[in-house]
C-alpha cells in the first residue's frame, strides 16, 4: 500500500502539535468555544449527545494490520473498548476526552493515519470499491487513483471552504460497489479505444434532504487529465454553487438547476485553461503511485482447491458462510473474504478492540496483512487462499465475526441515530437490531436472498436509506419516534432512489411492516427473482396493499 513520503509525514505531525496547542489554549480559557469549534472539527473531533466523537479517516477504506491494531489500541486505551465503522469507510470513536485527543492523533500519525478532512466543507475522504486490487471484475486497482486524488485534495488551499462538504468515490470494476452515482463526483475506470485506462466521470449525485442520482459528465477522460479535470469541476462548483442556503449548496443542486450540459460546458471551458498546466499527471508520477499498489506475492495456485471443496461438502455452516460472504478473486486459488459486522441483534458496524486485534492477526496470517472497510460497515480480507478459508472461518467464529449474511436482510446499514448522534430525530440501531433478530433464522434469511435494508436516524441520510432496496428513515412525530419506509432504492450501477410507500410506522410497528413487505415478496416472486427484481416487475402496489389494505 501507499507509504507516506516526508511531506505527508511532516504535515500530519505538524497538525497534531498545532491541535495540541489549540486544545491547551481552549482548556486554559484563551480560546472560546466559538473560536475552538471549527479547529476541533478540522481535526475530526465532534461533540455528540453523550461525549466527544473522533472520526478517523481510513483512506479509501484500506487498512494494514498494523493500522488496525492501532485502532484497537485507541479503542482500548482512550475509549470504551470499541469503535464504529461508518458508511464512508471511516471509523468513529464515541468517547474520547478532549485532553487526550492530541495523544490519540499522535498515535494515529505513527501509523500514517489522521482525522483531517473528516469534517467541514472540504473534500472528504475519497471512498472506493472495498474489493479494490482483488475483484475479479476489475479493470485496474482504483486505489492508485484514490491516492492521487488524496494527495491533490489534502489541504488544497482553494477547496478548504467549499459551499458544502464534497465527496468523491472511485470504482475500477463493472459492478459498482462504491455507490459512485450518489456521490458529488463519481469516477469509473474505463478502457479507451487503444486499451489505455481512463475515466468515466459522473457528477451531482448525493443523498440527504434532496437525494439525486449523478449525471454523466464525460464518457472518457485520459488518465493524465484526472486532476486538472477534477480541479475544473470543483472550481465551477465553488464559483456557482449556492452558499445562501445550506440545503442547496451541494453540487447536485447546481448540476440539476443548470443542467448537466451547462455544467459540463462550464467545466470544459475552465479545463481548457488549466489542462496542460501544473496538474497534468506525468507518466512517472502515475507509475510511482502504481508501484505502491503492486499486488502482493500471490502464489501460483490451481483455480479450485480440492481441500476447500471438500470442506464445503462436509460442513454446512462453512458452505453457507462461503456462499454469502466469499467473493471471486482475480487471482486463481484466492478469494475475497467479507467479515460481517452485523451479528443478529448486534450494532451494525461496531467492533470491539479484541475483534479488531483478532482481525489484524487474521490479515497477517491469511491476507498479506491487508484489510478493507466496506461502506456497508463490514470488513474485508481481500486476498485469502481458498484453502485457508476454512481456518479463517473457524477463527472468525471464535470472536463472533462469522455471521453468514453479507448482502442479505441481516446485513443492515444503520447510522448511529439518536443513540449517539446529536442531529438525530430518531434512533436507528434498535430498529436494525430488531429486524436482524426477527430474521435471524438462517434458512429463512437465505431463502429471502439478496436485499439491502438501510436505516438513517435523520434526513441527513448517513445510513443511505434512499438507496436501500428497503429504506427506513427515522423521524420525530410529536415527540415520538416514527419510521418512514421507502422501497426500490439501489446503490449499485443501476442506482435508484427509493420511493415512499405510504404513511410511516410507529417504533412498535416498523418491524412487522418490514416483515409484511418481505412476506409479500416471498408470495409473489418468480423463480430466482431477487427482492428488487420483483419490486421492479410489479411496482409498489402489492406491497402497499399488504401494508395498508386495499382502499
Amino acid at each position, binding site marked *: 500500500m501507499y507509504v507516506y513520503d516526508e511531506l505527508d509525514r511532516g504535515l500530519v505531525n505538524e497538525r497534531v502539535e498545532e491541535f495540541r496547542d489549540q486544545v491547551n489554549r*481552549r*482548556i486554559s*480559557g484563551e480560546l*472560546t*468555544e466559538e473560536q475552538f469549534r471549527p479547529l476541533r472539527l478540522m481535526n475530526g473531533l465532534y*461533540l*455528540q*449527545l*453523550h*461525549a*466527544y466523537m473522533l472520526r478517523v479517516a481510513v483512506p479509501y477504506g484500506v487498512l494494514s494490520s498494523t493500522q488496525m491494531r492501532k485502532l484497537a489500541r485507541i479503542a482500548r486505551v482512550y475509549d*470504551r473498548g470499541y469503535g464504529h465503522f461508518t458508511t464512508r469507510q471511516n471509523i468513529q470513536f464515541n*468517547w*474520547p*476526552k*478532549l*485532553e487526550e485527543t492530541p495523544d490519540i492523533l499522535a498515535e494515529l500519525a505513527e501509523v500514517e493515519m489522521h482525522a483531517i478532512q473528516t469534517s467541514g466543507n472540504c473534500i472528504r475522504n475519497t471512498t472506493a470499491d472495498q474489493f479494490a486490487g482483488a475483484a475479479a471484475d476489475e479493470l485496474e486497482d482504483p486505489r492508485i487513483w484514490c491516492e492521487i486524488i488524496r494527495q491533490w485534495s489534502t489541504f488544497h488551499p482553494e477547496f478548504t471552504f467549499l459551499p458544502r462538504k464534497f465527496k468523491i468515490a472511485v470504482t475500477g470494476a463493472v459492478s459498482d460497489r462504491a455507490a459512485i452515482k450518489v456521490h458529488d463526483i463519481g469516477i469509473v475506470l474505463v478502457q479507451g479505444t487503444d486499451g489505455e485506462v481512463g475515466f468515466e466521470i459522473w457528477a451531482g449525485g448525493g443523498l440527504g434532504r434532496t437525494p439525486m442520482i449523478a449525471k454523466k459528465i464525460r464518457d472518457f477522460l485520459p488518465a493524465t487529465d484526472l486532476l486538472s479535470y477534477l480541479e475544473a469541476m470543483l472550481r465551477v462548483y465553488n464559483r456557482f454553487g449556492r452558499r445562501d442556503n445550506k440545503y442547496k449548496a451541494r453540487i447536485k443542486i447546481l448540476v440539476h438547476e443548470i443542467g448537466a450540459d451547462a455544467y459540463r460546458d462550464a467545466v470544459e471551458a475552465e479545463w481548457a485553461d488549466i489542462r496542460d498546466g501544473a496538474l497534468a499527471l506525468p507518466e512517472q508520477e502515475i507509475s510511482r503511485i502504481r508501484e505502491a499498489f503492486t499486488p502482493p506475492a500471490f502464489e501460483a495456485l490451481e483455480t479450485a482447491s480440492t481441500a476447500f471443496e471438500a470442506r464445503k461438502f462436509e460442513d454446512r455452516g462453512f458452505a453457507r458462510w462461503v456462499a454469502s460472504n466469499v467473493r471471486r478473486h482475480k487471482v486463481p486459488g484466492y478469494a475475497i473474504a467479507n467479515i460481517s459486522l452485523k451479528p443478529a441483534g448486534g*450494532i451494525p458496524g461496531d467492533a470491539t478492540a479484541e475483534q479488531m486485534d483478532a482481525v489484524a492477526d487474521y490479515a497477517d496470517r491469511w491476507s498479506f496483512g491487508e484489510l478493507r472497510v466496506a461502506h456497508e460497515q463490514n470488513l474485508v480480507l481481500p486476498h485469502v487462499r481458498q484453502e485457508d478459508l476454512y481456518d479463517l472461518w473457524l477463527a472468525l467464529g471464535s470472536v463472533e465475526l462469522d455471521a453468514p449474511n453479507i448482502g442479505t436482510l441481516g446485513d443492515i446499514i444503520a447510522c448511529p441515530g*439518536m*443513540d*449517539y448522534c446529536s442531529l*438525530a430525530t430518531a*434512533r436507528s*440501531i*434498535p430498529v436494525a*437490531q430488531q429486524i436482524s433478530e426477527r430474521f435471524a433464522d438462517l434458512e429463512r434469511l437465505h431463502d429471502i436472498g439478496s436485499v439491502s435494508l438501510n436505516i438513517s436516524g435523520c434526513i441527513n441520510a448517513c445510513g443511505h436509506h434512499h438507496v436501500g432496496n428497503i429504506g427506513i428513515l427515522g423521524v420525530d412525530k410529536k*415527540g*415520538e*419516534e416514527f419510521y418512514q419506509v421507502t422501497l426500490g432504492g439501489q446503490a449499485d450501477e443501476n442506482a435508484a432512489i427509493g420511493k415512499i410507500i405510504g404513511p410511516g410506522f410507529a417504533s412498535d410497528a416498523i418491524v412487522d411492516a418490514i416483515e409484511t413487505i418481505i412476506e409479500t415478496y416471498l408470495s409473489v416472486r418468480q423463480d430466482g427473482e431477487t427482492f428488487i427484481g420483483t419490486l421492479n416487475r410489479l411496482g409498489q402496489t402489492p406491497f402497499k396493499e399488504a401494508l395498508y389494505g386495499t382502499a
Partner: protein
Amino acid sequence: MALEIITANRLGDGLVIFLTTDGWSARIDAAAVSETKDETAALLARAEADAGLVVGPYEITVERQADGSLHPVKYREALRTRGPSVRTDLGYQAA
C-alpha cells in the same frame, strides 16, 4: 410554566452535565430548577459565564416525578441522562 433546567457538555470529556445551585453535576436530580422565564434566563446566564468549563449550555423541559426525581420530557434528553439505549453498559445508566 413547565419546569426547566440547564444542561451542557463538560469541556474536558464532553460528558453530559446539569447546572446546580452552586456548580455543575452529572446527576440530573441535582439540577437547579426554574419555574419562570426569568429564572431560566438567569440560570442560562450563569451557565454561559462558565464557558471555560462547559460547552453549549441550553435549557430543557423536565417533569418532577412522584419521588422528587427529574425526568426530561424529550426522549433525546432522557437518552442524554442515561447513555446509549443500545449499550446499557455505557454512560450514566451503567453506574
